């Protein structure tokens, strides 16, 4: 099944481009340290998901590019084409001249209705190119005007036009100390609207990724391109093909559906967070060795201590002691800083992943009481290494991780609103 990506606004288009880049470079760059047959299956599965084969020699990304000003899209199209490995469909974009002025209302109430037909036509065309449509992946920021406002409107249109398709929104959480002064208004409006029409929101926080660039990737002068490349790598680590069933013979054909099924058991809880380890500068890779137990241990502690990267993890945080008669979600002896999960998904990529012990993730004390831990936790695997990391592990979780940032955003929005 294929995923149609909708790139919205400057951020959405810049990130989308890096995502297709990362996926392509993963497929072409290495042989994945596995058998040729495995590699070919991987390649085919990936192609089916993200690219369509057309008369052109180069695979064409299944994407619709939308922006209310022309510069970013025109750059994105040309840079992609220059890569020689892939490109966008030249007709699959829509832009205007004015921009949205960082005004959510402009994006949602003016540009949205005005351009609904044109945009949805483009989406329909991409959807029709798919043998089987696996759903939609939209990429947007919350802080601006187009990604946020128009993004919320388009998501609604997608829901109306494709009522049985999965919609996953990738949302960029802006820097705390501001990129846009009205970003908190735009964010609050976006989240509340997306919650109605989206199946899940996968969130990346700029502050977090920035830290990863600084401390782990050791980038000196961090640009948005650096940030976007880390985000793209993390997304790739989730969306590239995997075996979802133990002993499965084929790569999963329904990534979005599988994601929703494992992680969103309840429609009121749709916020998903992503962690991927290890992350390091490329030139450090030859000198590093990785062990599955080490990676799993780190990932688990990152989850329960709500650490966003593998440095500076608080190892003191422990799950609460479970007493069988007390429902864990109301337990007053739940330690502070402990991040309770609703559901978790671990993805392992690299050789020898068959016998990795993931029992620590099935510990009931990690989870709320209303799901059986057997159902709350899932693992996807592939022996094929991802993007130059001989072993890598990702964790997609539905947990309390976004509570504090959300509180901050709402607090600041309220402050601004309630003044004077």
């Amino acid at each position, binding site marked *: 099944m294929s995923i149609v990506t909708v790139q919205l606004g400057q951020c959405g288009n810049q990130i989308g481009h890096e995502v297709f880049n990362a996926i392509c470079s993963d497929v072409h760059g290495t042989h994945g340290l596995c058998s040729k047959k495995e590699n070919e299956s991987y390649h085919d599965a990936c192609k089916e998901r993200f690219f369509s084969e057309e008369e052109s020699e180069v695979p064409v990304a299944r994407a619709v590019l939308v922006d209310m000003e022309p510069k970013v899209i*025109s750059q994105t199209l040309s840079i992609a084409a220059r890569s020689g490995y892939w490109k966008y469909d030249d007709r699959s974009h829509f832009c205007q001249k004015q921009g949205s002025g*960082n*005004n959510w209302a402009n994006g949602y109430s003016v540009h949205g209705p005005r351009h609904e037909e044109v945009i949805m036509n483009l989406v329909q065309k991409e959807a029709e190119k798919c043998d089987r449509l696996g759903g939609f992946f939209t990429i947007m920021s919350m802080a601006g005007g187009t990604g946020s406002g128009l993004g919320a409107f388009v998501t609604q249109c997608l829901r109306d036009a494709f009522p049985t398709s999965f919609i996953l929104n990738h949302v960029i959480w802006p820097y705390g100390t501001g990129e*846009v*002064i009205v970003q908190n208004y735009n964010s609050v409006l976006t989240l509340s609207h997306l919650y109605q029409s989206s199946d899940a929101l996968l969130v990346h926080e700029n502050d977090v990724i920035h830290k990863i660039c600084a401390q782990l990737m050791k980038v000196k002068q961090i*640009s*948005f391109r650096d940030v976007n490349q880390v985000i793209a790598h993390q997304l790739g680590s989730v969306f590239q093909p995997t075996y979802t069933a133990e002993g499965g013979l084929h790569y999963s054909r329904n990534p979005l559906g599988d994601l929703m099924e494992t992680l969103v058991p309840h429609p009121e809880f749709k916020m998903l967070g992503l962690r991927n380890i290890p992350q390091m500068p490329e030139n450090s890779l030859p000198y590093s060795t990785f062990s599955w137990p080490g990676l799993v241990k780190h990932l688990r502690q990152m989850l329960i201590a709500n650490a966003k990267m593998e440095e500076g993890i608080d190892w003191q945080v422990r799950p609460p002691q479970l007493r069988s008669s007390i429902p864990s979600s109301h337990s007053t002896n739940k330690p502070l800083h402990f991040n309770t999960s609703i559901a978790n998904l671990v993805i392992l990529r690299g050789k020898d992943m068959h016998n990795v012990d993931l029992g620590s993730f099935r510990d009931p004390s990690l989870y709320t009481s209303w799901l059986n831990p057997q159902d709350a936790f899932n693992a996807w695997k592939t022996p094929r290494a991802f993007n130059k990391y001989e072993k890598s592990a990702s964790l997609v979780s539905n947990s309390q991780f976004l509570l504090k940032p959300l*509180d901050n955003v709402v607090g600041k929005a309220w402050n601004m609103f309630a*003044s004077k």
Partner: protein
Amino acid sequence: PVSLPSAVGQCGNQVGCRFWDLALREHAAVNKKGIYDESLSSFFRNVDTRSGGDGPDIYKGKICSLKARALLIDMEEGVVNEILQGPLRDVFDSKQLITDVSGSGNNWAVGHKLYGYQYRENIVEKLRKTAEHCDCLQCFFIIHSMGGGTGSGLGTFVLNLLEDEFPEVYRFVTSVYPSGEDDVITSPYNSVLAMKELNEHADCVLPIENESLFDIVNKIHQMIDSGKLGSTVKQNSLVTSSAGSTKTVQEKPFDAMNNIVANLLLNLTSSARFEGSLNMDLNEISMNLVPFPRLHYLVSSLTPLYTLTDVNVPSRRLDQMFSDAFSRDHQLIQADPKHSLYLACALLVRGNVQVSDLRRNIERLKPSLHFVSWNQEGWKTGLCSVPPVGHSHSLLALANNTCVKPTFIELKDRFMKLYKKKAHLHHYLHIDGMEQSCFSEAISSLSDLIEEYNELDATKGGPRTDPSRLKIAV
């Protein structure tokens, strides 16, 4: 998106002239192949002049003949004539000019009521024609001075017109305010009368004071003359210089100062014209920096003032650029934003500056700045990849800050000094449409504005009580 500047009056047109010259220089430096592109189209039309005169617009392909999207208005011919005889003569055509002979006699009423009435149709028609050629008109700029008669009076008349005829298009005004020692005695009257119009009809005003421009020019001369920098200063990087531009005539005293204002406008529009990792358009400036409609006065600063030829820019020099942007002597009006209250702040960087440089400096400078309680962490930032000519990077800071207040208070004081004695009033009152109430309304509007800033200042440093709300469990 297209911007349409209108230069009104002597000051406006002299600044405008520098602006068009530097804009051409900037685009020429970037556009090596001579192809008419999206970024050029913000300020210029591409006209086919082969058939002589005003041919059709060419939207793609090679540059044929560039015409500025502009209106040049002056009630005296001198300045505009000089432009038309100078190196920019092919950039304008007669349909963009509105001139008269006798000037406005430093009388706002003559500019606004007399000439306004007389030239209304003409101006509207020319505006419409010029706007028709624009694919997507986003913003009008008015460039003028406040102290005279034409720029001040007719300029604000045009502002009114723009609101009536093109209500959806943003109106940005660059206003040069008179200094205390201004030689025009009636400048306080003209300025206050114009202020009322700016209060009511402008979306955004960038006030400039000649004193500040003068100080900056002197500072640069001193740095160069003292030999501290010697030959290591790149001449064409001076924010005051026209070096490398089309001008060959000996520079006049105001040229250096006007270049600063021209550079301000170029930097303001850079992100709308050129690509970058975080674009910042003009409509975003208004959206983010104007929390309440009347408080739309933005204090600006441009750094660096010059670039050294040393190509390697260590990050501490970058950091110095940010520090300078907040220092009192880099502001384009006599103001000290650091010691007053910020309602909002925008930073637009150009060139090889990345998001980490922005973040590092915001973190560093934030503690020493005072922000209003409901916008403690609100910064608007933009990153444009293309630096100004001669620089590897530059920064434009725009502050909505109560430090504009002293400028307005002084203006009010100077006005009252004259008004109490009714000095020179009769020159105004005998113009058709002018009454004493125009004066009292104007000063009242200014007083109200000052009062709004006072109220905000009163909150500065006070206890921070956030309005209570439903708390969620964390």
